[in-house]
Structure formats: C-alpha cells, structure tokens
C-alpha cells in the first residue's frame, strides 16, 4: 500500500516538474540508448562464430613466416595438408578445406535464363562434410549428401531468390565461369551476420579436379601454402597444444620455415585475422566510451535528484515529524528514482530500436535484426537496467533520507547542504569528459582532412578505373582503342592492378653493399604515368626506353634503401630471376594510404602490357575523362564497349578518388562515431547544467529579489548566478586539455603522416564548452533575473 503510495507520489512529482523530468529522464535515456547500441555492437563482435555447436573444438590453421624484419601470416594451405594432418593426429576428428579462387572472380549464371548472371565474391569450394563440420542450417537437401558428388552446389536462400525467383532452386543448374555446370543440390540459410564465413555458393570439393584452372592445386602434394583455408575439429580442445606441436614437427620436416598455430574458431574474427583492423582497435575503446556516457547520464540524474531534494526537504521534514523513519524516506525516494530510471530505460529501448539501423549504417556494419534477441544482448540489457536502477536510486535516497527534520521545518535548512560539493565535482567531471571528446573529435576530423587533402603526388580527379579479367582474353588493346575514341575520353592507361588496391611485391636479394629489400612493383604503361601525373626526379635519358623490357623506374625511397645514390641510372636489380636496369627515378608519391610511410616502389613500363601478363591474368584500364562530361552516359558507353568484348565477366568500375577515399573508411567511421558521442556528451552535460542552474535560480529567488530592490541590474544578477558554474567549466577545461592532448598524441602515433595538434584546437574546444554552458545557464538565470522582485519576495 505504501508502495503504491510512493509510485503515485513519484508520478505526481514527475508531471508537476516537467522540465526536470524531461532533463532527468531524457538525459538518462539518451545515455542508456547509446550504451545499448554500443553494447549491441560489442556483443555482436564478441559473438562471432560462437553459434557453431562444436565451436570450442574447431580451429583454423595459421602460418607465420619471418622474412627479414617482417612477419608474414598466411591462412591458406595446400590441398593435401588437411588429410595429412588428420592422418598423423588421432585427436583431429575431421578437417574442412574452403577454397576461394585465387583472384579469379566466380561468375554464376542461371543455365535456363542466361540473362541472370553476376560476379559472386562469396563462392567457395568446400569438403563434403561442411554441414556436419559447421552448424550452418541447411533448408533444403540432405546435409550428408548435398556436396558429395562433383559439380554439386548449395546456394544461400537469398541467392536462390536472386537466381531462381520464386521457383524451387533445388535441381536447377548454375553455370560457373561460363564453362562448368553445377547442379543445385541444396539451399542453406543466409549466414548470420556474426559468422566469419559468409558463403553464398558452396561448390563440392570433388569438383576441383574437374576444373581446368584449379586442377593443379590438387596435384601439388608437398609443402605448405596453397589456396585453401583449413579448419580442423579436435576430439577435445585440450589437445590443441599437442596437435600444434605435431603439425610443426611435420612442417619442419618439409623444410617449411613457417610456424603453425591453431586459432580457435571463435577468436578468428577478433584475434588472428589480419583484416580485423578496425574491429580490434576500437572494440576496446567503445565499451569504455559507452560506460563513460552512461556514467555521465547517471551522474546527471543523481546530481539533479539531489538538487531537487533541497526543494523536497520540507516534505521530508514533515514526513519525519509524522513518524517516518529514515528507512521509509529512503524507500520512498528509491522507488521514485527507480521508477524514473525504469521510464528512462523503456524510452532508451524504444530509441535503441529506432536508431539501430541508422547507427549500424554509420558504422558500416551489418548486424542481423534477430541479434537483438540474442541471449547475450538480453543479458547485457537486463544488467544495464539493474545497474541503472541501483545506481540512480541509491545516492539520492541516501542523501535525502538523512535530512534532519527540524532544520527543515524551522526554516534553518541551508539548501546547499545536500551534496553541493559532490555536485560540483560531478559537473567538472561531465564537462571535462565533454571537453576531452570535443578535442578528440577535432583532432580526428583534422587528421581525416589531412588524409584527404594532402598532396599525394597522384592526380586523382576524373579518372575512371575499369578492372578486367582474363575473360577479356586478347581483346584488351581493341577494347582500349575503342574506349579511347569515345567522346570525352582524354587518355587511357593500363596497370596490372587498380591503384590503391594492391600491388605486386618482390624481394630484392642482398648484394655486396646493398641490403635486401621488399619492393612494391606495378606493371604499367607510359600513358598511366601521365594520367597519374607522376613527377620525375631523374627522367630517363631517352623516353623511348620506357616500354622496353628489362627496364625499371624506381621511386626515391627505393633508391635510398637500396643504396643506389648518387647515380642510380644504369644500375641493376634482381627481381626474382629477372634482371632489371634502372632507367629513371620518380619523386615519391603516396601509392598506399597515409597510414604507412612511402615504401620502395618500382614501376615496370610496357608499351603493350597484355603479352607480359599472358592471357590468364587480369588488369585495369584507366580512363581520364575531360571535366564537365556527362559521366553516367560515358560510363554506359564504356560498359557497352566492354560487353562487346567480354560477355562473361560483368562490368565493374570505380573512380580513382573514391578508391583513395575508401582507404580511410576506418577513420571516417571513427570520426562519425566520435562526432555522435561528442554531440551526445555535450548535450548531456548541457542538460545537467541547465537543471542545476534552474535549481540554483529557484533556491536564490529571494536573494535575487532583494538584490534587485537594492539596485542590481539584470546583467549583474546573471553574472552572479553564472559565475559559479563558469568557474567549474573552466576547471574542467584545464583538466581535460592535457589529458586529451596525451590521448590524441597516442592515437596519432599510428599514422606515418599526421597532423600536429594546434593551440587553436584547444581554444575552439574551450569556446564550444563555454558556449554550451552559457546557453544552458543563461536561459534559466536570465529568466530569474528579469522576474519582478515584488512577486518573488512574496514567496512563502
């Protein structure tokens, strides 16, 4: 009954003081919502691959090879490695080879409707026991049989829809790379978003010997290294060490310099995977930020509640005089706080569900809708609710229940006694956090701007890249000629790979006074060098040398690293078994992202590159477009030309400047997220201050009235009320600045090319924080300061 009474009272207080309720509940809900979203993301990252029934016993093989100063990691193995390992280790119950296609694009085509055709990046050759090895659900077909025979294929349900529409896919045929016809034997569910294996097409491993371009991989019996990812399942995870030792003995016998380790399936996503980059680095940071934001929201909540308590002091006094002990008072305020916290939580859940698509879009992450009901997520949310209720309720009820009744009833109560100094500390903490985040945001954004706008030494404007596959065959020059003749095309060039998207690499061996060196290389033509606008440091004496075989152009770093100064021209290098003569030196340019220092690079220049690559290799056509062209129509023309020569591989293109921008995706995401966090933190801190300022004004109503009667101006009153708060904000800034400087100094260290933090960043932060604080305080204080003293003094 008393409990019902508490709730009723809590509700009346809530609706009576709307501003505080909105600040209190809204602020807490915003903090909780962000916390939930981040936790959802973190839980998703941590849940990778754990849905497999046997996950603890499944391991992925990883090989590390030391090469000079670099360690190189491989997760690809030979066709024979799996069976050999199982044979020699009783603990290995089964193995799974997943073969991707070594640079070949898989082109899938509906045999009965040839127009339905696309390049499919997620197509793999797998062993027949795939569906018993992993726990991916098979929707149609017999798990033991679907991949047993050669040229059988299992497709995901979304691919079934893509290729066969509403028809039943099982029994239909799909043509692979124009030559091989596979029978669809089963349909599997799309892989959950927290799976590191995202297959759309599974082709039976037994088909590999029947495919010309892949056959060689099955016949190479010796040594490690190959195109297959290799997973093994142990009888007991405890045998991991033994098996690892055995395998390493085995590879030592094979004179393989590498070191094998077994990576638990559930750790692949976050640990050993070399693409983990973004995930790994920020997965640790995000929960901290989430907790910080929640903490700020809770602090807000508590400090507002205790501030409000000074207004409720009278009520507490009366209740004590009427026979309430401090336990009852504590209960009452606890229930009240808990009720508000619960409301905030519900609001946060609604916000979280609404904002989720937007948030994951910002992060450029895919998370299944169903993941929200994952037990881990529900557990985290319940924990969040409990923590919120416990923390939000305890401090206010503790402070409030300790008021002495007489002090209040006899009017001797000095209202600031309710944890005023605690509130000051909390305010400093909040604004300090906000200031740190503002500085971080500024620095991250400046670094991103620097990445995007630093002169890289490459002309990126109006350059279209059209990669082509081996299916273009011998038609490259014809295709290129035709593109070059299109209206609006200024120039065309060729390179082995699209720029900013991988390079070839050579190990240049040691010679007398020349240290060994890793040399990036790219096979290009002269036109490409012109399109990219590469600058000569030492141009070749005879430009016609460009395009003759056996010649190489180095960048300045390569010359320096390989000790070729001062006269590099005419010197020779050994690239593998090829002898190359240096004929020119290019000025350094950034051919990879600014994360890394410029590395040694050699360009081999050809007149016509296609014979050099043979017929089985792919390359990239670069098209320089005149400014102001109708780009979509031009691309359409290029596409038509392309399809004339290659009906097989679908047409793809990208712009050079987009490809450049994509290298900074991780920083881009970080900037977006930090921007969001910062805005929210400033909002929460501002709301908190707004609430405190309102209370301060309310408490000092009478003082303000008296001062006005004595002749104080509105400005003087406003200054009087703002002064204390501004002092706190300044203290917060003084504490936050060096901290943020240190944090960002650490963050910047990871980039080879980085900005220096400037004083203006801190000044701007100070201005922003102070403005936010002034806005928050100003509204309330000016209202209080302009009130007619006659009405305020009539209070009581």
């Amino acid at each position, binding site marked *: *009954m*008393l409990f019902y*009474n508490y709730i009723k*009272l809590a509700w*009346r*207080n809530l609706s*009576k003081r709307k501003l505080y309720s909105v600040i209190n509940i809204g602020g807490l809900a915003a903090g909780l919502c962000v916390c939930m979203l981040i936790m959802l993301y973190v839980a998703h990252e941590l849940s990778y691959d754990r849905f497999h029934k046997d996950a603890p016993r499944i391991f992925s093989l990883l090989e590390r090879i030391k090469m000079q100063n670099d360690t190189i990691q491989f997760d690809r193995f030979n066709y024979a490695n799996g069976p050999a390992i199982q044979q020699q280790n009783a603990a290995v119950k089964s193995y799974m080879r997943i073969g991707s296609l070594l640079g070949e694009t898989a082109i899938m085509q509906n045999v009965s409707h040839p127009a339905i055709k696309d390049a499919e990046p997620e197509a793999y050759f797998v062993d027949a026991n795939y569906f018993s090895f992993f726990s991916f659900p098979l929707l149609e077909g017999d798990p033991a049989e679907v991949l047993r025979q050669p040229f059988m294929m299992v497709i995901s349900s979304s691919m079934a829809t893509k290729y066969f529409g509403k028809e039943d896919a099982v029994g239909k045929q799909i043509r692979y790379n124009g030559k091989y016809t596979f029978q669809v034997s089963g349909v599997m569910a799309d892989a959950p978003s927290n799976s590191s294996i995202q297959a759309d097409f599974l082709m039976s491993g037994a088909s590999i010997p029947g495919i010309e371009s892949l056959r060689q991989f099955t016949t190479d019996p010796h040594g490690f290294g190959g195109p297959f990812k290799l997973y093994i399942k142990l009888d007991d995870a405890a045998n991991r060490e033994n098996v690892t030792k055995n395998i390493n003995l085995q590879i030592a016998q094979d004179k393989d310099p590498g070191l094998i380790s077994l990576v638990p399936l559930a750790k692949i996503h976050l640990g050993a995977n070399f693409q983990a980059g973004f995930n790994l680095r920020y997965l640790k940071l995000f929960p901290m930020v989430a907790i910080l934001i929640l903490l700020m929201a809770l602090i807000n909540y508590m400090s507002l509640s205790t501030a409000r308590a000074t207004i409720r002091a*009278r*009520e507490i*006094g*009366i*209740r*004590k*005089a*009427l*026979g*309430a*002990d*401090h336990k*009852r008072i504590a209960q009452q305020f606890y229930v009240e706080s808990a009720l508000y916290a619960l409301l905030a939580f519900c609001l946060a859940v609604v916000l979280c569900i609404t904002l989720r698509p937007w948030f994951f879009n910002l992060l450029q992450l895919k998370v299944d809708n169903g993941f929200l009901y994952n037990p881990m997520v529900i557990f985290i949310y319940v924990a969040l609710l409990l923590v919120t209720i416990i923390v939000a309720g305890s401090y206010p009820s503790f402070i409030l229940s300790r008021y002495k*009744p*007489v002090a209040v*009833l*006899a009017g001797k109560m000095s209202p600031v006694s309710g944890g005023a100094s605690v509130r000051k500390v909390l305010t400093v903490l909040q604004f300090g956090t906000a200031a740190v985040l503002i500085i971080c945001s500024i620095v991250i954004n400046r670094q991103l701007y620097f990445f995007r706008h630093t002169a890289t030494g490459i002309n990126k404007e109006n350059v279209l890249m059209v990669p082509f596959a081996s299916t273009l065959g011998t038609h490259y020059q014809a295709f290129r000629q035709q593109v070059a003749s299109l209206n609006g095309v200024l120039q065309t060039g060729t390179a082995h790979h699209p720029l900013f998207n991988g390079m070839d690499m050579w190990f240049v061996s040691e010679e007398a006074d020349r240290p060994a060196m890793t040399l990036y290389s790219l096979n290009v033509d002269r036109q490409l060098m012109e399109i990219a606008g590469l600058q000569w440091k030492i141009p070749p004496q005879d430009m016609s040398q460009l395009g003759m075989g056996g010649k190489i152009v180095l960048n300045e770093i390569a010359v320096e690293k390989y000790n070729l100064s001062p006269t590099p021209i005419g010197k020779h290098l050994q690239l593998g078994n090829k002898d190359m003569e240096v004929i020119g030196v290019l000025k350094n340019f950034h051919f990879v992202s600014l994360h890394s220092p410029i590395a040694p690079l050699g360009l081999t220049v050809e007149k016509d590159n296609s014979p050099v690559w043979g017929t089985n290799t792919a390359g990239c056509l670069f098209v320089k477009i005149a400014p102001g062209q109708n780009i979509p129509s031009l691309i359409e023309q290029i596409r038509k030309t392309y399809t004339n020569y290659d009906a097989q591989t679908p047409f793809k293109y990208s712009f050079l400047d987009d490809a450049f921008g994509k290298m900074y995706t991780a920083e881009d995401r970080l900037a977006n997220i930090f921007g969001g966090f910062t805005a929210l933190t400033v909002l929460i801190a501002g709301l908190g201050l707004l609430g405190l300022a309102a209370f301060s004004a309310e408490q000092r109503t009478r003082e303000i009235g008296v001062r006005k009667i004595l002749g104080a101006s509105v400005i003087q009153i406003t200054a009087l009320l703002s002064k204390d708060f501004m002092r706190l904000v300044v203290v917060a800034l003084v504490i936050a600045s060096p901290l943020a400087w240190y944090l960002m100094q650490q963050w910047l260290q990871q980039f080879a090319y980085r900005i220096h933090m400037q004083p203006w960043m801190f000044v701007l932060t100070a201005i922003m924080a102070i403005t936010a604080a002034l806005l928050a305080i100003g509204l309330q204080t000016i209202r209080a300061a302009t009130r007619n003293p006659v009405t305020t003094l009539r209070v*009581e």
Partner: protein
Amino acid sequence: MIQLQKISKHYPVGFGKNDILKDIDLTINEGEFVSIMGPSGSGKSTLLHIMGLLEEPSEGQYLFEGERVDKMNEKKRTQLHRGSIGFVFQAYHLIDELTVYENIETPLLYKNIPSSERKSRVADVLDRFNMVAKKDLFPSQLSGGQQQLVGIARAIIGEPRVILADEPTGNLHSDQAKIIMQLFKHLNEQDKITIIQVTHSDVNATYGNRVIQIRDGHIQP
C-alpha cells in the same frame, strides 16, 4: 507526562555560544492545555521542538511519560512520532503533491494500519471536520484556514496523546483563528488530548488553562 529538568540549548557561534534556553524546569501533566508565550527569539519555538523530539537539548534531562528521551534510539523516537505526538505548524506544512485525503492518511501509512481501518478513520475525521467534499483537493486549492484544519486533522488521526502546535493561527485571520482555537479546546476537553501551543496572541492563550511566559531562555515565574 512531560518533564523537563534543567534543559539548556545553545548553538556554537564563532568561538563562543549563543544560549537559547537556560535551565528550564517544566512539568506538563496529562490533559493540560498549555500556551507558551514570549517575544520573538525568546526560545519558545526551540522549547516546543525539544518537547516534540525534533531537536535535542544541549544539557538537561527530558522525560516523556517517565522515560528518558536522550536514552531512546531512533526507532523508539520514531515510535513516539507515530503514536504519541501530533504536530501542527504555523505554515501548515501539508505535502503539496498529496490530496487532502492522502495528507490525512499519511501518518496511518507509517503506522502500518490496514487499509480498511485507514479508510474508516480518515472518513471519520473528514466527517468531523466537515471536509468530505474537499477530500480530493490539493492543498494549493484550499484557503489558509482550511489548510490548517487539514493540518490538525492530520495531527489527530494517529490518536496522539499530545499535540504540539507552533503558532497554529499565525497565518490566519481572526475568524479562522477562532475556529481553530475552539477546535483545540474541544479536542482537549472531549478527547482528553494534551495540547501545548506556542502563541503570540493573548486571546489564543485564553483558550488554554495554563500560560508559560518565556523571556531570554528563562521561564518567567
């Protein structure tokens, strides 16, 4: 019923102290209607607070029904607030967020009285004070006199043995004050409730049967 022996009260001020009450000896018997009078700052309110256990004396002994109050723990004091002592304040001190009905009911909630009994007791009191029609109003919707009636209703609902009233009519005009004072007299005579009031008004003091004059912390003979 109430025995004060050598009660003193002082507050520290700087390095010295400010005496409010000095060596008060006072006995109030069951059924008395006592008026404490004296000029502002004479210590009469402090005396009332001490009697109501809202404040503790600096020195001296206080016996409530023969029991030493300074020896009581918090629990026992709370018991006295719940069962034996009712308060009426000059500023009424109703809880703004509660209706008339709920304000009156609150002491019963703290006494853990079952719902049905609470209902009938509150109904009785509302009836007796002629406030049934106003039971769902909030304090801000009532006049001062009506608020003080609610305050008194709330003070007597717990069936206290003594009511401590701190200038109960201080904020009221004379007609309302008269009603309130008659009510106190009635409670004293009919219900045998001991009443101790602090007042400035000689008229109000005439309702009681004993007047205690305080000046500078001393009881005037």
